[in-house]
């Protein structure tokens, strides 16, 4: 919002009353020099992002030891067959899925509701926006360490409140569901405000004419939200779902630090080991970089499938 203050060129939908005959004269600025402007980005991006990403597939066909990372032995598909026969892979897949659902779904619903409130005429709106974005500015490491304290079994504030309210204290680290809920809450805390702002931006881009028409037709507030806001936000919602899905599939820092002892198994009985953490364990605890690469590439395929499903669902709903 703050950066559109510079005079923008007139949008094509609103031509000035007297417009001189104007062709697109972009060619005047066409130049070979353009490649020099985009080169730094593409060279660095290719070397440090694209090449490693693609090369992961090749590494996953090899045995590579962390202590001798430049010695690769071809093993074909065996890293993948090992992975599919590894019970911890299936466990991590299941955990990633459940933590992903219980962190993403409530988070996006909350964000949508908050965005709706932020879209009202408010006193001190900047205060609420900045406050809600504070968790996003807090790093994964810091927020996980803080929440590990809040979720402490014996002296954590959350258990103190629970016991004051007459509930039992919960073992947030060692319980299966408690640990997954706790980790999901950290993710939710960090990202809800951010997503609320994304939704708010989308809401502000919806034409007010639509709301006026709805009001004339006698639509209630809820009907306006349901039949104007939600359809108008559909692309934004899809965008946040895709981004959250990609993030949830790679969840790593929270489960690593939530354990509190530096182990990479995701709790004593692997109850919160995610795919990201499994990959790290294979590579940097067990020294098998090839296996870690197979896990990484499998995660990528999972992301592709999930994104395709999301997009297809969004398309299907629009056409119905």
């Amino acid at each position: 919002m703050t950066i559109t203050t510079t005079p923008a060129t007139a949008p094509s939908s609103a031509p000035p009353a007297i417009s001189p005959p104007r062709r697109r004269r972009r060619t005047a600025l066409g130049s070979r020099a353009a490649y020099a402007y985009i080169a730094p980005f593409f060279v660095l991006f290719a070397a440090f992002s694209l090449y490693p990403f693609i090369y992961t597939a090749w590494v996953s066909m090899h045995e590579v030891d962390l202590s001798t990372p430049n010695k690769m032995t071809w093993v074909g598909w065996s890293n993948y067959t090992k992975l599919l026969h590894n019970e911890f892979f299936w466990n991590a897949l299941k955990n990633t899925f459940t933590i992903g659902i219980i962190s993403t779904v409530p988070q996006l619903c909350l964000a949508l509701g908050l965005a709706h409130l932020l879209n009202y005429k408010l006193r001190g709106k900047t205060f609420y926006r900045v406050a809600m974005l504070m968790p996003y500015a807090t790093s994964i490491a810091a927020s996980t360490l803080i929440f590990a304290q809040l979720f402490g079994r014996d002296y954590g504030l959350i258990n103190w409140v629970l016991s004051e309210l007459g509930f039992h204290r919960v073992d947030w680290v060692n319980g299966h569901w408690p640990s997954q809920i706790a980790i999901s809450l950290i993710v939710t805390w960090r990202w809800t405000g951010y997503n609320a702002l994304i939704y708010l931006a989308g809401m502000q881009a919806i034409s007010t004419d639509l709301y006026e028409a709805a009001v004339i037709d006698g639509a209630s507030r809820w009907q306006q939200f349901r039949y104007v806001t939600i359809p108008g936000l559909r692309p934004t919602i899809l965008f946040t779902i895709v981004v959250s899905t990609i993030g949830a599939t790679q969840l790593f820092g929270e489960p690593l630090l939530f354990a509190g002892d530096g182990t990479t198994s995701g709790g004593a009985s692997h109850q919160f080991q995610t795919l990201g953490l499994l990959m790290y364990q294979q590579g940097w605890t067990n020294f098998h970089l090839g296996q870690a690469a197979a896990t990484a590439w499998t995660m990528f395929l999972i992301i592709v499938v999930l994104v395709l499903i999301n997009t297809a669902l969004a398309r299907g709903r629009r056409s119905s």
Partner: protein
Amino acid sequence: MSARRILRAGPVSYTILVVTALISVFPLYWTAVIASHTNNEMARTPPPFWPTGNIFHNLRLAMDQAPLTKALVNSLIVAGCIALGTTLFCTLSGFAFAKLSFRGRRGLLAFTIATMMVPTQLGIIPLFMLVAKLHWVNHLQAVILPTVVSAFGVFFMRQFLSQAVPTELLEAGWVDGASTFRIFRSIVLPIARPAMAVLGMLTFLMAWNDFFWPIVALTTQNPTVQVALAGLGTGYVPQQAVIMAGTLIGTVPVLIVFALLGRHIVGGIMQGAIKG
């Protein structure tokens, strides 16, 4: 704009927003509370609810037990270099994509946007092998170079520049015989400055908070703040207060910047969202 459209928030809305703001900020406040008290004091019922002067003692202990001074300096260097590099390189590419015509422009732009969806974090294994081959493990360039450009940045600058820079102005410069670089420097850069500032802040924040790759590429011998915090949280530190004091040291610098400039960061995130 109709008055009916802009609904005023009622007391319920305000209550929900205030509670949300409190929940957003409370864990950070609680960090200061824990950092001021011993384990025994925190175990009392009810627990103490206010920070005390002891916090300074524990901040000093945390500085002694974890290499936090070095970590702060390293993070400043890393996040600073990444923010500067991203802002510069992405403004250059954004300008080319917005205002120059060249072969493959559409295709390359579509490619750049598509890569925003690719989880490049999954490439850390070959990246680690590359960095090991270059003997960069535990050196700061290992965490700077891989993140010094971002597809989001290119997209962000392109969207801004294609709207904010009038093509006529560039053409005028072109007709006067100015070189493309001259045009970039004296026409585009001044106009781009506010967007560059927002992109720089967002990038700095993300680089300061980056976790996965730094923890792979660096050790606690030469850490960034996040690596040092991970070391503090997973090592043997008997007093929780010290861990929380360390967390404060690593977090407060960004939060201060955020409190001062948060308005612009909020604007930047929303600006990026509309186009995205």
